[in-house]
């Protein structure tokens, strides 16, 4: 049976039909922003500015407690530094999976090499004799992240940057299944969800699956133009509004972060 969600009249007025990209000029280019309930998949290339975009996308944080930024590559201090630099709100929920993984798994591996090289000391042996169970190191981050997003209320805003972490450690089909669930949840709760995934090493079939689940598909690319780099965002799918499909060239400024170029470059 489908769950019935009721939305407050006030909320409907406050949040409106669309939410901002975090980049006002993108909003302007695409009829005011992202329709509420949309799941966006961003296929990214290294150096294309997608990490910054993911942060900028959460920065509007209409309700900070209902905004979640999940990073798999960066640590808390790094994220705080970027948010501070651009004056984005610091009171949103941030989960740094990469950092957690490093502290859990990599630290353990480091300790294992120490034991193997230097052997056990008396205190290690005493601790070993008193340890009855293996630490749960193979934490299921995918389920955790899914649950965390599913726990957000109506009109939430969330970003997963990036899905690569899960695709490398989990069965990709399971990852796709979770994304399907998240898409349904986002639609039902009128949330906004951005999922970035690197195109390098992504299998065509998974890419195809992700693209078909997504309501909006973005591709972040970078290319050299003369002696310069040109970063761009291509909107290749926009559910029910194909007129919005376009390519936006942008650059990064210290004041506004990602800023679309309004003047077309002549190569």
């Amino acid at each position: 049976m489908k769950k019935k969600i009721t939305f407050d009249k006030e909320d409907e007025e406050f949040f409106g039909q669309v939410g901002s990209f975090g980049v006002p000029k993108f909003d302007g280019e695409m009829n005011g922003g992202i329709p509420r309930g949309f799941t966006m998949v961003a296929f990214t290339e290294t150096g294309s500015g997608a990490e910054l975009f993911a942060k900028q996308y959460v920065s509007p944080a209409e309700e900070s407690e209902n905004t979640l930024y999940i990073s798999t590559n960066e640590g808390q201090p790094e994220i705080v530094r970027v948010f501070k630099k651009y004056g984005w709100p610091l009171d949103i929920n941030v989960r740094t999976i990469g950092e957690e993984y490093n502290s859990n798994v990599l630290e353990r591996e480091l300790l294992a090499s120490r034991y193997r090289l230097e052997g056990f000391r008396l205190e290690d042996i005493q601790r070993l004799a008193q340890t009855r169970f293996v630490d749960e190191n193979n934490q299921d981050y995918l389920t955790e992240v899914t649950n965390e997003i599913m726990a957000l209320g109506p009109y939430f805003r969330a970003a997963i940057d990036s899905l690569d972490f899960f695709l490398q450690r989990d069965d990709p089909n399971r990852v796709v299944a979770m994304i399907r669930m998240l898409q349904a949840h986002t639609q039902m709760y009128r949330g906004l969800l951005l999922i970035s995934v690197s195109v390098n090493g992504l299998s065509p079939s998974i890419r195809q699956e992700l693209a078909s689940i997504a309501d909006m598909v973005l591709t972040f690319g970078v290319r050299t133009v003369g002696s310069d780099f040109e970063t761009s965002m291509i909107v290749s799918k926009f559910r029910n509004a194909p007129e919005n499909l376009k390519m936006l060239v942008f650059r990064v400024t210290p004041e506004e972060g990602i800023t679309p170029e309004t003047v077309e470059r002549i190569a």
Partner: protein
Amino acid sequence: MRGGIPYGSTVLASGTCGSGKTTLAMEFLVRGALAGEACAHFTATEPSVKLLENIRQYAFFDMNMVDTGLINVFDMDVLYSWLGLDKSTFDLDDVHALIKSITDIVNTIGVTRLVIDSVTTLCYKIKSEQLIRDFLFTLGKKLATLGCTTILISEITSATENAHWSSFGVEEAIADGIVVMGDVERMGHLLRFLQVVKMRGTSHSRAKHAIELTPLGVMLTPMLKWGSQTDSANWGA
């Protein structure tokens, strides 16, 4: 066995499921602890929590033996995890790491009685027979040098005359002693038996002995000669 297991020996305790191998090994440790010896039990077949719960039934066991460090029970899963060995197959480096850690433990806390329960589950992770041989031989040699008497528990599927006393066929060649435990079926009933097949340095009985697992430990008596065959085909012969 007329005196017991010679110090520093490696004894293979082979047996079928439920034959009392773990109980025998635990008694070996508890008896050692009673005499003030430091003991270690590496368990891979059942969690240490369960094992400690089971040995409470012994009238001569005292939890103080664990609290004061005379009896040390190590979960192999935890050891594997600490050594980064939580994987399905061990290579040469892994095997050496395991030997080093076991001998480290024996050396550091001065263990004189050691049980590995079971060597079968451990050897399943070592794919090559040569590596299993190296592992057991090196481990046995190092433990003997440290004056540690070791019981290696081996799980076998059948304890008949023609069966091997170990799963890999390697363990039995390396051990100084072999104790086999199993069941004799007599008219639909299973009687537990224990038989010392070999024990270097001792003159021992090689007869089958019936055993009973009691709170006073494993009790044994020679099995009736006319009833020690698994089948009853010899009856009336």
